[in-house]
């Protein structure tokens, strides 16, 4: 056998390569079947970054459809609730350039929650049907109310209300609970190259 291989080196190489190819091919084929991933994993990753307000400002019916659209090459700057931070995270994930938010789809604003002026509510259930996360409690001809902890502030309940009794109010009021230390502002602290220099406005 060894003699035969020594005699026909070309043939030996050929056989060896073909055998290796067949073996690795079989292993890869088996792995592809055995460890098959269900669905598109990148969609889940994109969906995890999107803010899940389900507001539809991007033009898609919910965050997951937009995640699918992004995976298929749509622009990443159509999500106002996600804001610049969201775009940055998407850009990092997809390894593309971060682009400014598309103003066409709305502006980034503070987090809001819906608030129903309850005396004015007529119990029409229209907002219940519009809410993407079932955050409105109520029944036909019964007063409705928002479950604030579940509300994503998507704004979708405001438009269907026939008596216009829903307001969007800032989610967190400026108070003790929401307060936290801010990063030091180098501009406010008047950074000078040499500390002993008098600040400019005093010197002038």
């Amino acid at each position: 056998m060894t003699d035969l291989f020594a005699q026909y080196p070309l043939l030996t190489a050929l056989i060896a390569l073909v055998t290796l190819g067949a073996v690795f091919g079989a292993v890869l084929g088996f792995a592809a079947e055995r460890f098959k991933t269900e669905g598109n994993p990148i969609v889940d990753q994109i969906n995890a970054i999107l803010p899940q307000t389900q507001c539809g400002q991007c033009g898609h019916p919910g965050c997951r459809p937009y995640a699918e659209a992004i995976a298929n090459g749509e622009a990443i700057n159509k999500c106002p609730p996600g804001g610049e931070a969201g775009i940055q995270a998407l850009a990092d994930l997809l390894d593309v350039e971060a682009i400014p938010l598309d103003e066409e789809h709305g502006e980034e604003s503070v987090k809001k929650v819906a608030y129903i002026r309850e005396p004015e509510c007529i119990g029409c259930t229209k907002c219940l049907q519009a809410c993407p996360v079932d955050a409105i409690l109520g029944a036909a001809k019964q007063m409705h109310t928002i479950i604030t902890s579940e509300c994503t502030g998507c704004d979708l309940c405001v438009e269907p209300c026939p008596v216009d009794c829903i307001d969007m109010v800032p989610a967190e009021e400026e108070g003790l609970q929401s307060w936290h230390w801010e990063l030091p502002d180098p501009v406010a602290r008047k950074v000078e190259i040499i500390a002993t220099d008098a600040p400019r406005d005093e010197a002038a």
Partner: protein
Amino acid sequence: MRKIYGFHGGIHPPENKHQSLRSPIADAGIPPELVIPLSQHIGAPSRAVVAVGDRVLKGQMIAEPSGFVSVPVHAPTSGTIAAVEDRQIAHPSGHAAPCIVIASDGRDQWIEHGGKADYTSLDKAELLERIRNAGIAGMGGAGFPAAVKLSVKPDIKIETLIINGTECEPYITADDVLMRERAGEIIEGTNILRHIVQPHETLIGIEDNKPEALAAMRAAAEGSDIDIVEFPTKYPSGGEKQLIEILTGKQVPSGGLPADVGVICQNVGSAVAIRDAVVDGRPLISRITTVTGEGVAQPQNFEVLLGTSMHYLLDKAGYSAEKNRRLIMGGPMMGFTVPSPDVPIVKTTNCLLAPAESELPTPPPAQACIRCGMCAEACPVTLLPQQMFWFAQGKEFEKLELHNLFDCIECGACSWVCPSNIPLVQYYRASKAEILQLRRDTEKSEHSRIRFEARQERLAKEEAEKEAKRAARKKAAEERAQQAATAGGDEDPIQAAIERAKAKKAAQQAGGGEVSELEKLEKAVATTRKRLETATGKLETAKAEGSDLVEALQTGVDKTKAKLEAAEKALHDYQQANSGEQAKPAAPTDAAQAAIEKAMAARAADASLSPEDKARGQLEKLRQRLEKSRTKLAESRENGDEEKIIEALEATVERLSQKVAEAEKQLQETEGA
């Protein structure tokens, strides 16, 4: 001599403790107004249980805890509740928070209270309850409820109980004077803690810059197996985790609690408060606060009622506002500037520092980081402050977490050594807050996603159900149309339905009132009978299950029976009355009416029979029919009728015999029952 371990880093800032140690603890007295914030501790704010105008006595609970990690609040003196409203509190934000305002009456009248000198007769749960009810929350400065800290899981064995008498921050001497003047009470409190925790060893850690306190504590602990441990002064030895490392050599794991390494740590102030709560039944209504700095003429320690305005206390020490540019609560390292001197003293106020500008100058502007690495050398938690500074600037939160930002104790050692005067701790505090906010947001968005998906699923299911129903209806309609087509040619089914309805209406009108009256009565009988049947069924199941509803059901069945009888009687009377008047003229014209009446009469007769008799009657009838069929069959055979007819008759006979057999069996069963 016990081995003293050390910890990494640390600094030696000027101590400045002597100023406030010249005189003993003074009583600050009763101010005219006390403002008591509802949230003086870490955890859920307490809930006010008093209303404006209520008179409260000293030591009366005025706010109850609103959760496990929460403590009650007590009235520091007697007086009237002037307000329950938002007032500015001692917090770096300067925001207002809910407070109870007491207008003191100066009488300082105690509520009835009593302790238990013999605490060893109380078990652990009872002692913890007393500590919790006394509102004791971390006197060291953080404000963690003492009872929560002491209630470790039963499977965790506590090796070491450490009483923290370290007080490493410059200027503060509250614990120092407490140890000098009330060493006995501290030891008593420590013994209570030992009784609760049952540790192997009890250590009281005191830095060597407090020789008087050490001497006093040693004298008080004489003869007990409490170990007073003296160790070299270094900031921040008073940090819980640092002190544990110094005394035991054990490091508390990242994100863990001291209990994870078998240690519980309490402040000396907490030990005294626990002693007061257990032995005297006195809740936490006052504390010792150091008032110091060049802004006050006589720096000293005060025993002050909680809720006292800082301004009131400062005036007692001879405060001059013009000398002092900013007022700091806590020490110069970890304290914060209070928004105004009018905010109240709370459970965590260990020091009021009123420094002159020369004493604690405004930090010079920050300059660029020169990467000298002094911060990393000073960090007592062995973090990399420099790296974290870069990441905080770049808002790279993931990397900050990887560098264990959350292990930072915010001691300020890094900022203190920084030659570029970078306010490092502020970067870390801000980043921590942002990371926590980000975590909350992610949690919320995950929650929203789940809700959204659940809703989508529900809507899809509802749609599918509707679709299925629609399809079923469509199929049924098609089948009906097909049947109509095969049965009645091309007759329009709708037209047919309309005609049927018309005919029915006409018949009703023709029948007039009499028929409808009769129908009503019949209906009443039928429905009542049905009801009786279901009621009996229910009664039987209830009996079988031994339910306690049997009696109620029995009366129900009886009542229904009575109703049925009444209905039947009414029907019967009506029929008789009608047959008397109308039967004769009606009978020949209306055969159907007669048949109905006959049936009714038969049914009425039936109803009065027992089930056994009924079955017997049924059997009799069937036998008669069988007999009739047999004779018919015999006749047909004799006449030589068509085979088909004979076959049909034979089948009828067979069927009837079967039915007879069945009826016989049923009868037997009824009789047997």
